[in-house]
């Protein structure tokens, strides 16, 4: 390892070190607990600042990668970490579980997500995946006193462990057949093979399935509604986005390997199109019937990953830009929505019924307004960032000549509008229920939480109106689809 490799790891080192620091502070100076959120935020900001010292291109023996789109993905992960931290403080204080471990685990899982999306080598991918996942399992069970939380964590853990085994098997198959764990070399081996490479394709499919699980694509989605429902709400602001962002990057890298052999493009396109359409349809239809807002957002997240895959049906150099833009919009609106849910629901261990929001739009104008903006953005209604994200993804499908898929996407998002709108009308058009009035006494709405909601809402509106610069920034140069 030389200085170049070390500089390349700056953001990860800052995050991991920040986690250790917080753990030490918890042990040595527990009276500082109230400041932990601030410290963790500084660490995250420092990690973002550390991006600039990362040299472009491959590093660490070709195990890690860094370029414009990767930076956008990494930024999305840290953005969700920041929103999650802002939303957490009030929740942890209210539930009396404020401690350093929570922040440390969160920073470490962000570190894992960062490594995962930069990794270009299968073992690094696996290690990063485990670093990310194990922290997530622990965080999902963080609220120990809640039965539903433990149940959620165990479900997530069992399925996740199972999936890890599949990923390992896939890696073994790939390595056994191609003799390398580096994706570029595997891609080269694929390109050279004359007949259909059955065993490595099987291996690739197993690894892809593992990341489809992390992205909660249908049919690997079953864990997400249960886990989101039971896990601590502010943590879901991270869980529902960061692993998806990192996994989406791995997904893209694996697909690029798969289509290195031009004869296989058709088969993989078919698989991705199936995953996409199934996720859009199942996610949207099941979200329609949910009464619990966290479950609804979980299914909506499934549908959104389906929209995202529209850009990857014909994986190519052009696909990554739309995916990055879409993920940034998805991070802002989903993390923001969970941040508001954290603040507006007082009882952590119970269902988060949508009807409890009745009339709260006027009682809490700021949070209600933010939640309404998130819902409109998730529904893809202009002038929000969510509309623009959908637009670039659908446009990518259109330029690939997939009109049918784009129209399925448009129709699916029309279904989506219906349930997102239900939140808006519950907020503003239903009279405030007595239950809501009772509940509101137990709420703890702090400045940090408000900041999280405002940050996300302002971002959504700003990028919805003026996305030009963002696009240029994401790809590092003016971008032409």
């Amino acid at each position: 390892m030389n200085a170049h490799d070390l500089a390349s790891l700056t953001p990860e080192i800052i995050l991991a070190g920040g986690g250790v620091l917080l753990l030490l502070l918890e042990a040595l100076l527990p009276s500082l607990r109230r400041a932990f959120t601030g410290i963790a935020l500084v660490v995250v900001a420092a990690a973002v600042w550390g991006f600039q010292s990362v040299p472009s291109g491959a590093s660490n023996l070709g195990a890690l990668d860094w370029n414009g789109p990767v930076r956008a993905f990494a930024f999305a992960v840290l953005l969700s970490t920041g929103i999650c931290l802002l939303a957490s403080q009030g929740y942890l204080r209210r539930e009396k579980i404020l401690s350093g471990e929570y922040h440390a685990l969160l920073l470490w899982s962000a570190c894992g997500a960062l490594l995962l999306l930069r990794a270009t080598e299968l073992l690094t991918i696996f290690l990063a995946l485990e670093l990310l996942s194990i922290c997530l399992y622990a965080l999902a069970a963080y609220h120990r006193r809640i039965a539903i939380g433990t149940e959620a964590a165990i479900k997530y853990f069992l399925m996740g462990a199972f999936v890890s085994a599949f990923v390992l098997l896939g890696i073994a198959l790939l390595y056994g057949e191609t003799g390398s764990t580096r994706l570029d070399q595997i891609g080269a081996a694929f390109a050279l093979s004359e007949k259909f490479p059955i065993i490595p394709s099987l291996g690739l499919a197993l690894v892809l399935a593992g990341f489809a699980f992390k992205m909660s694509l249908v049919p690997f989605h079953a864990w997400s509604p249960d886990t989101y429902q039971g896990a601590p709400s502010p943590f879901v602001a991270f869980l529902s986005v960061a692993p998806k962002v990192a996994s989406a990057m791995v997904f893209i890298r694996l697909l690029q390997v798969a289509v290195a052999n031009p004869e296989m493009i058709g088969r993989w396109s078919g698989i991705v199109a199936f995953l996409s359409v199934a996720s859009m349809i199942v996610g949207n239809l099941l979200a329609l019937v949910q009464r619990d807002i966290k479950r609804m957002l979980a299914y909506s997240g499934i549908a959104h990953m389906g929209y995202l895959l529209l850009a990857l049906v014909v994986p190519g150099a052009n696909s990554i830009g739309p995916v990055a833009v879409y993920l940034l919009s998805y991070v802002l609106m989903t993390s923001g929505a969970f941040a508001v849910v954290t603040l507006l629901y007082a009882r952590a261990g119970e269902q988060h019924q949508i009807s409890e929001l009745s009339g709260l739009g006027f009682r809490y104008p700021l949070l209600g307004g933010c939640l309404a903006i998130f819902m409109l953005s998730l529904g893809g209604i202009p002038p929000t960032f969510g509309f623009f994200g959908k637009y670039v993804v659908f446009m990518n499908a259109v330029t690939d000549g997939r009109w049918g898929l784009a129209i399925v996407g448009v129709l699916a998002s029309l279904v989506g509008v219906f349930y997102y709108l239900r939140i808006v009308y519950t907020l503003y058009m239903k009279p405030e229920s007595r239950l809501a009035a009772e509940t509101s006494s137990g709420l703890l709405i702090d400045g940090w939480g408000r900041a999280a909601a405002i940050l996300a809402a302002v971002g959504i509106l700003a990028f919805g109106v003026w996305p030009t610069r963002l696009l240029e920034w994401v790809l590092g140069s003016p971008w032409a689809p």
Partner: protein
Amino acid sequence: MTTFLDLLLGDTLTRLVFLPAAACLPLLLLPKGNAKVAKFYALLVSLLELGLGIAYVAARWVPGGGFPLLRDVAQGSGVGNPPGLPWIGAYGIRYDLAIDGISMPLALLTLLLLPIVFLVSWKGIEKHWRSFTAAFLLLTTGILGALFAYDLFVFYMFWEVMLIPMYLIIGIWGGERRVYAAVKFFLFTMAGSLLMLVAILWLAFTYKSLAGVWSFAYQDLLRLDLPLTTQCWLFAAFALAFAIKVPMFPVHTWLPDAHVEAPTGGSVILAGILLKLGTYGFLRFALPLFPQASVKAQPWLVGLALIGILYGALVAWVQVDMKKLVAYSSIAHLGFVMLGLLAFDLVAWQGALLQMVNHGISTGALFMLVGMLYDRRHTKKFDEFGGLAAVIPIFSFWLVFSTLASVGLPALNGFAGEFLILLGSYRTLPWATVAATFGVVLAAVYLLKMLYLTLWGPLTKEENKSLKDLSWREMFALLPLGVLMLWIGIAPGTFLAPSRPALESLLGDFHARVAETAPDEPTLRALAPILIAKPNPAAETATSQDGEGR
């Protein structure tokens, strides 16, 4: 190089469009419980906006000629240097606002109705005044933007921006079944506009494959010559979106619900402006972009317009609720406008444009009067009224006056519009025009029935005997509309002249393209003449000054 900020601060369409949206921000600072401050603030902003709008138009008015096509950023109308500011460069989307004789009257009507809406809502709206103000201001931004947009993507954005505020206005401040009405309104409009979005993308994509660059600009997409089948599909998508908004039979069912449940101010804007955006969309986009398809669809659409006229009139006749009657009368009146547009004749188009404004004025006034009665008695049912003429004479005068304007009494505005539509349509659609004339008769029947049941007859109800007549505030709100009804009725020429050249060149281009046969493969034409044609030299200098001035 002009920037957006320059536009926002200068005397431009951009300022007109975004001032209302920007005026929402100070609302957050206003005291929470004090509705009075919010009310005066709303009135002040809307009057300022109206003043700016009138000043903008007056400064560029060419006496005797047509109102010119004016762009916010006019530099270079040639190929390679398109007008407008780059917005989303990767897709060639440009922020391009322009006004011409077609959008100018509708924009002025929007600005005029805004302060009136706040005046009539003064007492009727009891809660959440700050949000109420914000919703209407955002709605105004959406309407003006959609009227001025010359880039189809920008148009779509503004078109959708109108949706949310109106949904909230109906859903929060509406009547008993408000949520049902609001959701119905939203889903109908959204379904239509998503299909329109797909059609817009298709157009831009076809342009890209022919010209090599992305563009959503109106003048670029007008250059597309598409095969007839493609045209028909795309026209269907556009027409559906606009027909839902107009609304045409059979996608009109959201309208009675939305109108009945909406608060008075919401109904005024809905009937006055939002419905017109449907007919405006036909005139500006659907017909010129797909001329051959429009001719092909003409018999079907004329049939639907006629059904709208007659069905709307008959259903209005049997209503027992005043507001519902006025709502159905809107369907009938907009049927006339659609008939005029589908005649593809200059006189009919002039009449249709005039009638769009007329309908906004007289139906707006009728909704306000129904609302004023509702504020007093909290009912809109005919059997609760009768004999009001003796109790509240000023109100009765205004109701009679607005009704007669709506019926189309000569020397009031409705007559001029309807007459021109019928005159123009008779040249190209004689039989349909004859059928539509029955609609005029029916309009007299149901509107006079409304007068009879409310104002005349015996005064039976005890509660009605102590009704208060119109206040100064209410009269002040009605006065500008009354003046316009009379003015347009007496001197319609003043109102027809500004839009004539714009309509003429649009129609000329339309007929020229219809005369050609549609190609088998998509092709690109030379730059569309309607956008290079300058109405007169004075306008040209005004435009170039516009470009250099900032």
